[in-house]
């Protein structure tokens, strides 16, 4: 039991953290692009905003379970033929795709919260658009970005349930197996308890950091 539990815990953590990281690698730049091309952004560009926003919306409307199927060719290409199932790493590509559209919107929203007056001040000081993104928008939105990270990570943990469909392991799939196939509800609950624990740590940890780095007036 302990052995299964710990290997499942490892699988969940690996799936979640790597996919979250990759989702941000792709989603953060897209979120920035969506923000700066919006009507009140740094370089308003309606066509770009509509097209990129549209693609993000489409991606977000495809359920994670179907993304697994749709992305089999890509997974085969990246992980080697036949590796699209059977291992925790099989979930990385579907999870990344399921999350990066979400990340884009969360980032876009966080950046939109930055006071437009501050951006105007930076422009009046002769800042380039690039400088405004990296020295004003992202740092000023940092607290909100961290809270967004918590929300993203927790939803990715939820998506790891679909690992069960392609024998990719993880706590949630294992928990399901214990409860459904083995009629072992004790083990099921122990697995779930670990999931709950991870979610708590991530959520509260991020909130704590977000609060600590936020120097605006506390209300």
């Amino acid at each position, binding site marked *: 039991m302990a052995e299964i539990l710990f290997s499942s815990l490892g699988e969940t953590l690996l799936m979640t953290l790597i996919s979250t990281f990759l989702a941000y690698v792709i989603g953060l730049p897209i979120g920035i692009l969506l923000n700066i091309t919006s009507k009140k952004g740094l370089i308003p560009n309606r066509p770009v905003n509509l097209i990129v926003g549209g693609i993000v919306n489409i991606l977000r409307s495809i359920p994670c379970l179907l993304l697994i199927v749709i992305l089999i060719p890509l997974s085969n290409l990246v992980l080697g033929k036949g590796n699209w199932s059977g291992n925790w790493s099989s979930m990385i590509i579907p999870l990344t795709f399921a999350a990066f559209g979400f990340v884009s919107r969360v980032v876009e929203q966080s950046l939109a919260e930055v006071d437009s007056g501050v951006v105007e*001040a930076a*422009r*009046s*000081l*002769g800042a380039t658009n690039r400088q405004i993104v990296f*020295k004003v928008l992202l740092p*000023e939105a*940092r607290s909100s970005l961290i809270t967004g990270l918590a929300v993203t990570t927790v939803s990715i943990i939820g998506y790891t349930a679909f690992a069960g469909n392609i024998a990719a392991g993880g706590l949630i799939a294992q928990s399901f197996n214990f409860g459904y196939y083995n009629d072992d509800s004790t083990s099921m609950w122990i697995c779930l308890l670990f999931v709950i624990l991870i979610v708590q740590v991530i959520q509260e940890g991020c909130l704590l950091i977000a609060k600590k780095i936020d120097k605006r007036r506390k209300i």
Partner: protein
Amino acid sequence: MIELINITKTYNNTITAIKDISLKINDGDIFGIIGLSGAGKSTLVRCINLLEKPTSGEIIVDEQKILNINNKELLRMRKNIGTIFQNFNLLEQRTVFKNVAFPLELNGVDKNTIKEEVARLLKLVDLEDKANSYPSELSGGQKQRVAIARALANSPKYLICDEATSALDPKTTDSILKLLLEINKKFGVTIILISHDMSVIYSICNKVAVLDEAHIVEEGDVEQIFKNPQSDIAKRFIEFKRLEVK
């Protein structure tokens, strides 16, 4: 010298925020622009500091036409025209020190020079002891002093103050106006002071233009307009009136 020639700015082809404005701001002036809310004051200064492109007209800064300059020159121009705002617009996640250092960072100035420069500027605005505070820990007057130090970090020739004292109490307003006057006299910075309050304009300006519904209705020496206002709107800025209800 900043020269505006027949500047018009229309938003969305419908709202004409300023119309046919011509102004000459000489070096060393403290040039006041007074007008009611919505008169077009902010639009006018946003055209001067090149945050907004006028729909038509010409702007000449130090003998250079600036409406068709390239991006690099535009950024250089903006650095020469500092702006402070009613809401201060400080970077909330940066300390006072880092706020004043911000324009220097943009310019790629090295760390040691930044330290010296920021120390000098904070001394100028009398905030040496607040270097490590965050804007949320400061009073309104202190925030505006940080904004002034930040604007001066680029060593601008011009400083625009858009309702810079409108959120401050009278005593703090005086101290900020005094600081602006000192900056004008000591460093020869030309100041463009926007306000809806004649007492603010009267305190430190030598020239004033009265803006009403997108037009300049009156312009001249402050003393003269204060003593002998021609337009109704200028008279209203000077008059005190007790209100009554029946």
